[in-house]
């Protein structure tokens, strides 16, 4: 038995929607494709808020690639989309159906464990036919290089593998993208962090409380003053027999405000507005968290190097279209385009051109303009400049602004529903906090329902996520509170004055002086990657099959 390199035409790393789309398209083109998935099952390592869109303008959609997808892998079609502006108990709701339906062939709620493991089964069958296949519990650790050129991948479980193309669909914390120097974990401004609770609920009760047919569902979004001024918002999606309720905030805002993500989620769960949907019984199936790249800033304009191409989260391809976040659909398109690019390049006799071709396709098919819209570059960025931001906030909150809000209620609702308008929204307090609050104060009605929900505390939430993490996969390089203290609050499974999380702060007496330090225990880690950005760490994923295992996702 030799440990010599194995060779496949294509290696796809990760079997989420991006990897699945890439692998299926490669297999359709007769390419021998090996798919390597880190989890015990595809979908066990990642979560999403839970809406997948199929855009009319997209060259590839998930149900186009996998015809039974909606029947087998999704929860409910979502046809209604409402945003609630909240100030205290005052709520003003806008129907943003126009934005939701704009360019949308369909949109379904999904839970990733079910969705991805179904996709993985399809992918395995198809790739097996062309001499490859899908393997779970393999952690791809980095890039295999020869004379400085990327020629394949290294893994923790297998001997190195060479390939003509490596598709990195290994998620938001892609180790391949970082090994290649294409992505980093430097700027909190480039990221959102989301946390989510999946709440158990009988299908009939969902139909009743949301007034939807059994084969229909609703999406509700929330913004305003209920999140202590942290920039972001909340969401609620109906699944078949559960609700996905979560919050998404700009990571820089979470860091600056020293906010506790799980408490922000609780602020949403316990708001009077939620009482009508949650009722008296609250049974949380799973608590989860994830880092979300803001494509406006993080999407790599040229996501390839040598034989490596990045797709989906790994390339920062997550579009925040105002309050609607679209990621999985872009990952699908990008994955299929990358595969198509390789097939084209191979047909031309020069597979090494795949990366260039992929980049060109992303631009030609309009994907890049959705991810990095021109309108945002011109107007949104301007709104983020300090004095402009201050002025806008002041105006919106002033008598003039409030008069404008009252006078222009209909106009506002339309503005919220305009894809062009929302693509220009700056990342400031104005759209996330100030404006929704003013809208709710001026136009809203008080909600007086009593909310009796008491969400589980963090210890219980973590308790449900116990798993074998294997060897510690994160090393804290700088233990000082100045360098890494933000992780104590920003980490979704840690909290100040809580000893059971990943990060804890402690006062250590040394030679008469006192030091404020941070300690780390990776046991409860959900692998979201937050601490890789806000703390000084050496971050990698656990071995294949180890670490967090989401059952809902």
């Amino acid at each position: 038995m030799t440990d010599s390199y194995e060779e496949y035409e294509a290696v796809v790393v990760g079997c989420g929607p991006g990897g699945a789309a890439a692998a299926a398209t490669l297999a359709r083109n007769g390419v021998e494709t090996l798919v390597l998935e880190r989890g015990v099952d595809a979908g066990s390592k990642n979560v999403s808020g839970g809406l997948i869109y199929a855009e009319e303008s997209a060259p590839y959609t998930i149900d186009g690639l996998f015809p039974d997808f909606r029947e087998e892998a999704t929860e409910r079609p979502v046809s209604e989309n409402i945003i609630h502006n909240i100030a205290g108990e005052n709520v003003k709701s806008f129907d943003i159906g126009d934005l939701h339906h704009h360019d949308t062939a369909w949109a379904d709620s999904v839970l990733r464990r079910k969705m991805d493991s179904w996709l993985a089964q399809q992918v395995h069958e198809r790739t097996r036919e062309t001499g490859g296949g899908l393997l779970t519990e393999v952690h791809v650790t980095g890039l295999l290089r020869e004379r400085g050129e990327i020629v394949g991948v290294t893994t923790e479980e297998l001997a190195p593998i060479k390939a003509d193309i490596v598709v990195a669909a290994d998620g938001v914390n892609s180790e391949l993208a970082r090994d290649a120097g294409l992505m980093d974990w430097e700027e909190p401004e480039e990221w959102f962090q989301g946390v989510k609770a999946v709440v158990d609920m009988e299908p009939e009760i969902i139909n009743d409380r949301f007034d939807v047919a059994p084969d229909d569902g609703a999406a509700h979004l929330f913004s305003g003053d209920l999140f202590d001024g942290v920039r972001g918002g909340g969401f609620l999606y109906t699944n078949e027999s559960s609700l996905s309720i979560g919050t998404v905030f700009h990571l820089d805002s979470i860091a600056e405000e020293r906010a506790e993500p799980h408490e922000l989620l609780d602020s949403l769960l316990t708001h009077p507005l939620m009482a009508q949907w949650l009722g008296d019984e609250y049974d949380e199936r799973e608590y989860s968290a994830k880092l979300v790249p803001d494509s406006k800033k993080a999407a790599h304009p040229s996501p390839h190097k040598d034989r490596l191409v990045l797709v989906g989260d790994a390339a920062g391809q997550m579009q925040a279209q105002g309050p609607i976040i679209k990621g999985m659909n872009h990952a699908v398109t990008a994955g299929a385009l990358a595969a198509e690019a390789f097939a084209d390049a191979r047909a031309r006799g020069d597979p090494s051109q795949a990366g260039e071709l992929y980049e060109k396709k992303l631009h030609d098919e309009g994907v890049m303009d959705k991810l990095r819209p021109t309108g945002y570059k011109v107007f949104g960025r301007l709104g983020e400049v300090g004095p402009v931001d201050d002025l806008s906030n002041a105006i919106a909150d002033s008598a003039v602004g409030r008069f404008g809000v009252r006078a222009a209620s209909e106009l506002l609702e339309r503005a919220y529903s305009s894809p062009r308008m929302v693509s220009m929204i700056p990342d400031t307090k104005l759209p996330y906090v100030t404006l929704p609050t003013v809208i709710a104060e001026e136009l809203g009605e008080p909600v007086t329902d009593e909310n009796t929900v008491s969400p589980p505390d963090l210890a219980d939430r973590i308790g449900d996520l116990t798993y074998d993490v294997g060897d510690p996969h994160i090393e804290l390089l700088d233990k000082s509170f100045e360098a890494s203290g933000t992780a104590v609050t920003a980490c979704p499974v840690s909290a100040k004055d809580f000893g059971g999380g990943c990060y804890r702060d402690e006062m250590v007496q040394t030679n008469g002086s006192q030091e404020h330090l941070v300690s780390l225990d990776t046991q409860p880690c959900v692998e979201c990657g937050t601490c890789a950005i806000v703390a000084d760490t050496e971050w990698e994923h656990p071995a294949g099959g180890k670490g967090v295992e989401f059952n809902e996702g």
Partner: protein
Amino acid sequence: MHTVVMTKGVPDFREGQVSFDEEGHLERGKTPTVMNPNDKHALRAAFQTKVRNGGHVSLMSMGPPGYKEVLQEGMRDVYADDLYLLSDREMGAADTWATAMTVATGLQKLADQPDLVFAGFKTADGETGHTGPQTCWCLDWPIITHVLSLDIDEDAGTVRAKRLVDGDISEIETVEAPMPCFIVADPEFEPTYRRASHRLKHKDLREETQERAEEYEESLTVWDHEDLNLDPDYIGLDGSPTIVSGVDPIPKAPSEREATMIEADDSEALEPVLDELTPYAAGD
């Protein structure tokens, strides 16, 4: 490549499964029969051979008709291609010697002569560890025991194995033997699949075998002593030189012990504990 794994059904000694009467004797009728746990190591070794070198894996056992389910369990685990059960009343109550005679004859009767025979490391009921080596003696093959890992060179017709010397983990040697060869897998045997192609094959075989295991009787051959052309005087109870004169039950350890509970932060109460432990720390 033809590989045969020897296996045996044993009482399920796990807590909650095993049943003893008042005198401490095993109640065979109330205790389910399962595959001898140590045989799983042999199965893993054989399966690794199949994944890496391809070929055909057979599973063979001697015992009552009820062992068919044990073979089925083995088929699911090792993804065996076919099953052989040596079974009739004349073979009953055999000791390790009579069993070895019977199994060796069964192996010789196989149309496709095996290149490798795998056995597990002693059974959970008899615990002798004799049957494998005695079977090998009957075949007059080389034997490698306590095997941790193995590589097969089909072209050279050899097998190279890492094994524990005297069953001791601190001493490992590498030996090579010509095939056909008899292998006893140690409980420390770890199959390794460092190639994606091997893992994919593993997955294929697993899926393919689950269906076959459902219909396992189609792959099962049962041979009695006439099929094997064995004289009843040399097998079963009559062919067994070992006589079990009696069984002494091991007295149970007293289940009640004196214990004092001390809170971890009660430093005063911990003092005497510390006093007790100090001499040991000093090496006395």
